[in-house]
């Protein structure tokens, strides 16, 4: 089995090309033929075709138990994300320790940033006796080592199944001097077997507000002119929160973003590692009870929090990941209404520029068919924007989507002639979407990095516009909200369309008459 050495110091071959060398290709063949005992190529090809069929789709949609490639994570990662948007806050995850390694890894792979959180590292003995001692020692260690201004406690499913009582445990730990009595330790129970990361986000926001604002209903809390805004779980939070602050600045609105991760998840490289950076100050969080109103950018990330805020006498308004012209109009009009200030002229100018850009490009968007998946609010926002562009959202899918959400999507589709072939699929996963795309083809998929497997299988180009994006860098630094954000989204979609057109017209002498210089 002697072969020449393909590897060389001059031109180092790594996995991209090394395994395409003849010696490796032959090795793969030998392994397969002699040792794998797999199925025949014909059988694999037959089944492969079958998975693309209408018959398969029916079987696939008849599934009741197994979930395959879902578009949801579990509660704690959402709660952790929410906690990390507050000044100097260290999330403390009560339960098994492996979970925290997973959440930190997942967020780090998306934001390309450090992510700090600790675990109470419960093991078998804690499963039997409860995790009180882990809480007592854990809070003391976390407080001494990492000098946080606040520790936000959340739970893994282990602690939830054995029924650990966070409020009691935290008080117990304070009584044992793990942290000072007046040190803020808000908490949220975040069982992984209820809802998903967006529910965990809601639970933690409510937990933090409850800590600072008190538990009782008080509709008469005195009010000032400020406005709170809760962004929700958002992979584009770095760009988006900064854009929201810019917009508030133009209005002259005193706005408090409740959980602002934009600086914490985008620290500079200047030789100093900042474990905590930016975030909503604890003082501002406390004061936010006196705001006139609270706006939620993502309805499904905040139902309980908004209810709680309402009970403090604030007006509340909710959006569904507003993207595009009309959605941004609505947001700005709401800000104007709540603040009593007119929409700034500069924003009106930005609106005009966005519409101008859409006008310039509409020919490439009109009638293009899209599949959209992700969190419920993202799907709603994206669907509305696509309709506005004259594109046709066809399959809209969210594993976290409810019946109510399906109706909301349907309503948006019904309001436009471009929505007539669209349908919402709540509670379904990306294996369902694979069947949908094979049986009812679309031109583009909008989703996250996990969608690259759909792109590979169906050959439908993927546009990455929602969390998590692991295999492209830095998109989270650019906003998707506001008119500027909509422009970014528009350009991302257009770039992919143009790349696709070029890739389909580049065969010399065969298709390249359409390989136009000007498009």
């Amino acid at each position, binding site marked *: *089995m002697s072969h020449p*050495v393909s590897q*060389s*110091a*001059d031109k180092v071959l*790594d*996995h991209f090309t090394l395994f395409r060398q003849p010696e490796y290709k032959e*090795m793969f063949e030998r*392994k*397969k033929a002699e*040792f*794998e*005992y*797999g*199925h025949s190529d014909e059988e*694999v090809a037959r*089944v*492969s075709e079958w998975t693309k069929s209408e018959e*398969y789709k029916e079987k696939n949609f008849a599934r009741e*138990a*197994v979930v*395959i*490639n879902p578009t949801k*994570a*579990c509660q704690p*990662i959402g709660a952790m994300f929410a906690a990390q948007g507050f000044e100097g806050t260290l999330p*403390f995850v009560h*339960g*098994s*320790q492996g*979970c925290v*390694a*997973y959440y*930190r*890894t997942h967020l780090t*792979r998306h934001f*390309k*940033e*450090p992510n700090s959180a*600790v*675990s*109470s*590292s*419960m093991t078998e003995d*804690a*499963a039997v006796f409860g995790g009180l001692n*882990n809480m007592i*020692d*854990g809070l*003391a260690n*976390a407080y*001494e*080592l990492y000098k946080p201004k606040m520790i936000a406690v959340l739970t893994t499913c282990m602690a939830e*199944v054995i029924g650990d009582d966070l409020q009691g445990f935290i008080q117990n730990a304070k009584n044992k001097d793990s942290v000072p009595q007046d040190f803020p330790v808000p908490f949220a129970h975040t069982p992984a*077997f209820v809802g998903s990361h967006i529910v965990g986000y809601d639970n933690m926001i409510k937990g933090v507000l409850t800590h600072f604002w008190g538990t009782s209903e008080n509709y008469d809390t005195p009010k000032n002119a400020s406005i709170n805004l809760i962004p929700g779980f958002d992979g584009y939070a770095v760009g988006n929160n900064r854009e929201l602050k810019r917009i508030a600045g133009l209005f002259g609105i005193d706005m408090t973003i409740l959980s602002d991760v934009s600086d914490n998840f985008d620290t500079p490289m*200047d*030789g100093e590692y900042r474990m905590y950076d930016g975030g909503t100050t604890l003082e501002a969080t406390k004061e936010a009870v006196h705001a006139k109103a609270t706006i939620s950018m993502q309805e499904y990330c905040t139902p309980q929090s908004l209810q709680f805020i309402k009970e403090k006498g604030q007006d509340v308004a909710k959006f569904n990941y507003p993207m595009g012209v009309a959605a941004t109009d609505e947001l700005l009009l709401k800000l104007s209404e709540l603040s009593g200030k007119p929409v700034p002229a500069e924003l009106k100018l930005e609106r005009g520029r966005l519409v101008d850009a859409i006008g310039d490009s509409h020919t490439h968007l009109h009638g293009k068919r899209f599949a959209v998946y992700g969190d419920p609010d993202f799907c709603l926002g994206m669907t509305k924007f696509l309709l506005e562009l004259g594109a046709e959202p066809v399959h809209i899918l969210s594993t976290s989507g409810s019946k109510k959400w399906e109706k909301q999507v349907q309503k948006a589709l019904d309001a436009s002639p471009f929505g007539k072939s669209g349908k919402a699929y709540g509670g379904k996963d990306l*294996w369902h979407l694979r069947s949908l795309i094979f049986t009812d083809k679309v031109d583009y998929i909008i989703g996250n990095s*996990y969608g690259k*497997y759909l792109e590979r299988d169906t050959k439908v180009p993927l546009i990455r516009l929602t969390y998590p994006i692991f295999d492209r860098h830095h998109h989270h630094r650019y906003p998707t909200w506001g008119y500027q954000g909509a422009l970014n989204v528009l350009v991302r979609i257009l770039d992919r369309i143009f790349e696709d057109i070029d890739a389909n017209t580049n065969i010399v002498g065969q298709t390249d008459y359409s390989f136009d210089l000007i498009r």
Partner: protein
Amino acid sequence: MSLSVNEGVDVKGLVDKVLEAYPEKSRKRRAKHINVLEAEAKDCGVKSNIKSIPGVMTIRGCAYAGSKGVVWGPIKDMIHISHGPVGCGYYSWSGRRNYYVGDTGVDSWGTMHFTSDFQEKDIVFGGDKKLHKVIEEINELFPLVNGISIQSECPIGLIGDDIEAVARAKSAEIGKPIIPVRCEGFRGVSQSLGHHIANDTIRDWIFEKTEPKEGFVSTPYDVTIIGDYNIGGDAWASRILLEEIGLRVVAQWSGDGTLAELENTPKAKVNLIHCYRSMNYIARHMEEKFGIPWMEYNFFGPSQIAESLRKIAALFDDKIKENAEKVIAKYQPMVDAVIAKYKPRLEGKKVMIYVGGLRPRHVVDAYHDLGMEIVGTGYEFAHNDDYQRTPHYVKEGTLIYDDVTAFELEKFVEAIRPDLVASGIKEKYVFQKMGLPFRQMHSWDYSGPYHGYDGFAIFARDMDLAINNPVWGIMKAPF
């Protein structure tokens, strides 16, 4: 190169100073896990495989990660159910780069995420019924699946489900092996127990219940690769060398592996172990039960590769021994060219390592081959036997840290200022912010393979591109 490292640095004083930050109880516990390697030491002198302290930001994972993520997950022709709530399988979905060749979704499922997605009612009433249904649906939608494993998440063991009964019943029904794995995340102190549990389930549910494939004909040259997860293609870059010296690799455990390869392993003549930590259990079992000897080898860097090839060949006849010498000689010019190109750029550079498995010692000589020095190393989930094997590789004065906390590692690195930190994704950006070149040594930072002669060239290139990138020079603003 000198015989010791960290000369002129008060490493012991540094350790004491760092430990001062802990509350007393935790300080005493952590002190046992950190040491400075002494001359002629037989052991690193640290405690290991002990529970992590709460609240300190351990870098460790859990038993589920060790079983589903490491041992079972790479077996490509089986479907591995993340049994319980949705998260564990979601976070570990495609996260590990254990490469395989196959038609994903049709005859292989390595980059997919299957979960029973537990809801509250499953916790209250138990999930066994749902598991029945999950298995039926998988078998119907994926008819070419050769077997199924049930990877337990935390709630399974807490609510008293009987996944073994489900596995037995459904296996009889569908006529395929179904392996129940009790790898709940709260078991043990790290991913290490998950490896052990997963090894034991291969023993009990594959070796005890299935037979080697009919028609499988043994040869005197049959070996296996045990404990290579094919990260970025590592097992392939190793297999090619073993084949070239005339051996027949009948199974890969578990990178790019199949159920049949597991089943046929008891027919091998020798089990070759790369990751001792995660798979020594099954090798020891096969030695006892089937009389198959096992041998550890190391395919990181040319010095270790040559030594390992000779050690492996020594177990066989003269033809294999001659072949080994031929293969070593054949790759030598490429290796020489790699070292000639990169050593001048890397010589004397100091490295601090913190990873899992076997790498905190196994990669050391690959760095030495490039003239680099290891000034600190530690394991996420090692046992005593790992720390006994470590002094063979590292020098006097090396800082050793077991289950290091984020706080300690940050302080150690800050004080020692190595030229490169080699650790994981959670650590990467911390040290890059500090202006330190970094390579992920779990995922090979999306590069690889690093095993074998072909891998060494990539390893050398990658260390160079990390250390000698101009970005480290533009970090400070001129104003």
